């Protein structure tokens, strides 16, 4: 995990430095009369300091070869995320029921490997049911799409 520690703490350092730079653009004020930028700048500087400490600690440890990759299918979370982002932007134009049915079909068919007709049927049923429960029974506002 040493290599991983170096990467993660390095990312934190980078993030903190960007935050310091952004916070400097806000009015700082004085110690006794802090402006909007005072607390964010202090926090970003403190985070940079702690992240540097973490990085220093990770670098001091001897680099060990990366542990054998844990068994797992890396593509699955990536594919799910892409599907979820696409769903997010399709939600309002397509409406909840249609977009959700498509998303669920993808999950059931591609990720879980169900037969296509089982996947399709369960996707449609779950999507319609969740619409009825949330939008009709619990009065949660969901996008209706072209069928409003």
């Amino acid at each position, binding site marked *: 995990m040493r290599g991983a520690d170096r990467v993660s703490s390095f990312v*934190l350092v980078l993030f903190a430095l960007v935050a310091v730079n952004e916070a400097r653009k806000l009015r700082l004020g004085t110690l006794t009369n802090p402006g909007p930028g005072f607390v964010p700048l202090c926090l970003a500087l403190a985070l940079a300091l702690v992240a540097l400490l973490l990085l220093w600690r990770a670098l001091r440890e001897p680099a060990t070869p990366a542990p054998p990759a844990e068994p797992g*299918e890396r593509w699955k979370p990536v594919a799910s995320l892409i599907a979820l982002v696409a769903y997010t932007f399709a939600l309002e134009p397509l409406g909840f029921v249609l977009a959700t049915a498509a998303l669920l079909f993808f999950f059931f068919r591609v990720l879980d490997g169900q037969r296509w007709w089982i996947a399709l049927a369960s996707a449609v049923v779950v999507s319609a049911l969740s619409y009825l429960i949330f939008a009709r029974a619990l009065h949660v506002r969901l*996008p209706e799409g072209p069928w409003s």
Partner: protein
Amino acid sequence: MELISGLLYGFAVSFTPANLFACFVGVFVGTLVGVLPGIGPVATMSLLLPVTYAMSPTASIIMMAGIYYGAMYGGSTTSILVNIPGEAASVVTCLDGYQMARQGRAGPALGIAAFGSFIAGTLSVLGIMLLAPPLTSVALRFGPPEIFGLLLLGFTMVTYLTAGSKLRAVAMALLGMLLGTVGLDPILATPRFTYGSVTLGDGLGLVPIIMGLFGVSEVLLNIEKGVTQEVFETRIKGLLPTREDWKISAAPIARGSVLGFFLGILPGIGAIIPTFISYALERRISRHPERFGTGAIEGVAAPEAANNAATGGAMIPLLTLGIAPNVVMAVLLGAFLIHGVQPGPLLIREHPDMFWGVIASMYVGNVILLILNLPLIGLWVQLLRVPYGLLFPLILLFCIIGVYSEASNVWDIVVMLVFGVIGLLMKKYGYEAAPLVLAFVLGGMAEESFRQSLLLSHGHFDILFTRPLATGLLILALAVMVLPAVVPPVKRILGTVGEETGT
């Protein structure tokens, strides 16, 4: 007797059909999410926040609280039967609970977990009843400097009592506070880090962040690793612990309850740390410490009591000060606020129906839970057989609905997905999410109280050191920072238990 009349009034409130139903739904849903891996009480409560719009304020809080302590019951079931903690506060229960199940004693393990939780829940309700009213009068003397001191104490607690790396927890807490500064400046309303975005103008939402870090990231991790659910194939018989079991467990349950309750009150502790400490304590004082880890019933009873008592204790700072001591209470605070009720020292006077109703409902809820969990245990076990391929799309779907419905803004879903990825990376690289979220919530309050204090004193820092209560809290915060270095046992206990459970 003001207390008795208050409590009787509370029972009257909690026994109205609507509130009783809310209580039932809460503990039922709580048990459900406690049993199901991949979704915990925090994500569920955030998810149901918008649903509470249609309910009365009292019923909403009763339901929300029910989800929390209901999940504490449900979580132990999976720990014992499958060796997978349904939620984090049941991690320790795996150690001896699963061993008991392997020896064919799943029944008594489940039984003592339920009874232990019930006793602890009951004791903690008594504790709230006795402690909350006097603390309310202290809380009335709290101004910005005192609140700042208390919040600082919370930050030091959450980082210095974490089971993992402290430096990493500090980094996460700072990151959380930094994320909390996005939006409008609390005093001057200057936009900060918003880059002209309307979504960011209101600040990052708590619900999208929680759902991302606790819901989405868990699902993403599980679909990568693949979840194997092997329910222990054994008939669960004899749920009632024997007389011998009771004799061994009685004192650990009592100790776990007291420990959990008082630790739960402290900001930054939550329900997880008390379970570790209670387990370590029982093993330390046991005459047969070697039995622990091989199916010792007190190793199930004590931590289960501790996590339930801690949920009760955590209600105290929320009800008396309006400050959330942990992430779950932050969501509960949100539920109060969407109904326009500010929990705090005035709650008991202005909304006695809520104050006493919620407390009494926790007692009612514990009884319902006992009924739900003992005779119906077989039903919950069946739930464990729901294939994850069906479960995870539903969890994701519920997260999306919950986040979207808050403001009908698809960008909130984007925020959730971004935090889902961040949460996944944090889990992989060994960073904890709890300090981040708590600091996110408390950070804004801390900045506000700090700057208000300076406005009050016209820029003099002595305001933090001339008011005895504020000074006391600051000294306590400092003590927590220094304590682990000075008193190694605290560190050692947390360290050893952390290693054993792999957290």
